């Protein structure tokens, strides 16, 4: 916990309640959090703050705003080096069939994983700690 690979995390969510909750939880674990409430703002904050990781809500303005933002981030030099996770409550249980786990989906969805809402902070931190940039495109 003392030596953190990821100090600054970008959180993007249009649900201000969830955004604030996740910010508080991660801050309490020693991270610095920058936030945005839309995909568009998310990219601006990303470019300005150069965070060490990004966690993005999937459905914002559009059904796939999260994927679009993640794609844009991953196309930048800095974005290629950092883990980007998509956060969503649209899962298999609720009938939305994507997981970004197959090779084909990874080809299309430029993110490092999908996380279910509500987020479990310990799980999220573990995912960040285990992130291996070599394994990613």
């Amino acid at each position, binding site marked *: 916990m003392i030596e953190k690979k990821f100090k600054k995390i970008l959180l993007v969510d*249009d*649900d201000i*309640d*969830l955004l604030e*909750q*996740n910010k*508080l*939880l991660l801050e*309490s674990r020693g991270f610095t959090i920058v936030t945005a*409430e*839309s995909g568009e703002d998310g990219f601006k904050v990303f470019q300005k703050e150069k965070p060490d990781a990004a966690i993005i809500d999937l459905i*914002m*303005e*559009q059904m796939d705003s999260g994927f679009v933002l993640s794609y844009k981030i991953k196309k930048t030099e800095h974005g290629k080096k950092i883990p980007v996770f998509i956060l969503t*409550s*649209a899962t298999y*249980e*609720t*009938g*939305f069939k994507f997981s970004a786990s197959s090779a084909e989906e990874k080809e299309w969805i430029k993110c490092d994983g999908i996380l279910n*809402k*509500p987020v479990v902070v310990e799980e999220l931190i573990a995912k960040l700690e285990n992130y291996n940039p070599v394994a990613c495109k």
Partner: protein
Amino acid sequence: MNEKKINILIVDDENGLRLGAQRLLQDEGYEVETAENGETGINLGTSKNFDVAVIDLKMPDVDGLDVLKEIKSKYPNTICFIATAFASYDTAIQSTRLGAFGYIPKPFTPEELIYQIELGVKQRELIIESDRLKKEREENLLEIAYEKSRLNTIIKSISDGVLVINRVGEVVYFNYAALKFLNICELKIGDAAILKLPEKILNLITKIFAAETILLKTFTTQIELLPNNELVIEAACTPVPHPDGNIAGVVIVISNITQFKQIEQIKSQFVSMVAHELKTPLAAVQGFLNIMLDDTIPLDKEKEKDYLARSVIRLNGLKDLVNDLLDISKIELKAKQREIEEIHIQDIIHNTIQLLELELKKKNISIDTTIEQDLPIIKADQNEITRMITNLLSNAIKYNKENGKIFIDALTKKNYVSIRIKDTGIGMKPEETSELFNEFYRAKNEKTRGISGTGLGLTIVKRIVDSYHGKVEVESEYNNGTTFIINLPINNN
């Protein structure tokens, strides 16, 4: 035949014998007519269908065999005897060839005559009975053939596919719908089913044939012929028991269940969306509570109160969502059991405005209503129309600007009452307008942020309007306000 007296014709030129035989037979209970020569014999014998005829072989005018021939050609079932004193082997054969039943040598005793006549009568009865049976059988066959062709026509014309295979797996019957569904170009009676039918159906047939006892139930399988539920069929395979206790074959009925599958899909998509929409506010409330319970996160009293208040807002949203969902299911039920009464649109509009007065005041929005004099009364369910106006008006307030205006018009347009609700609010982009009536769709942009809603309000409006065979239209200009126009038919029942 028993009630009617048996008719006998006697043809003989010898008076004594003719009249003697007549008397004898009349005493036995027969009806007897006589002819004293061949010509009279022919005339009488061909004038009606005698049961029995006794014909003398040698007569001065016409030969007995000719009389026999004439009678037989007219009435083949008349039992004819040839009587003669000049009995010879040749004439016996000849008369039998011509259709005579028997040969009575002269002179004969009364017993001999009666015995022969009785034999003849019995034969006659047998012939008539066999004729009757033959006719009956022919009629039955005709009826069966008719029934068969009728069944054929019925089966050929039904839209479900029907295919029958026998116990060795040959196709023994099919209609054209079956070929169409199974996409088989050519099929003949006697073709092996295994070469023609899809694997899923073959599996069922195999299962039916493999069973030790006949399974008297139907096995079904669904086959997606075109992807994405564009064409789905259901094949129902039922074993046909043979009277010998084995399986005679299997009847396969194929029906098109595409529409059913599509409805099922829409329903399950809706359930998925509902689950997702319910999960989000729950997650928000749960998140706030977890943070308040988390000792590692320091919160002051004010922050705690803020989080509780925000939780309440999310729970209220959840409650609204549940209510909207219940309303939707009510509309679906109500299509069958709604309370139709005469309603005055202007009253509903005024009541709704009063109900929403608080929200109007909050944003300082003024309302301008123009309602046509003598607006026709329409027949509808009061609650549904109220709900429809409420949803539209509360949207007009929610998405309006501070100090904005709302215009409500109601007027007659041909056979419709047309209600127009126009606001001076944030408006919509064209791509947003097109998705507006979809379940859970909410335009999301910088202007709508912070406005709460279930995403079902306009879905409910559309469903209500549709259920009255009305029309709903929307016109909108981004940043410049939105107008909803509802047209409800006047003469609806």
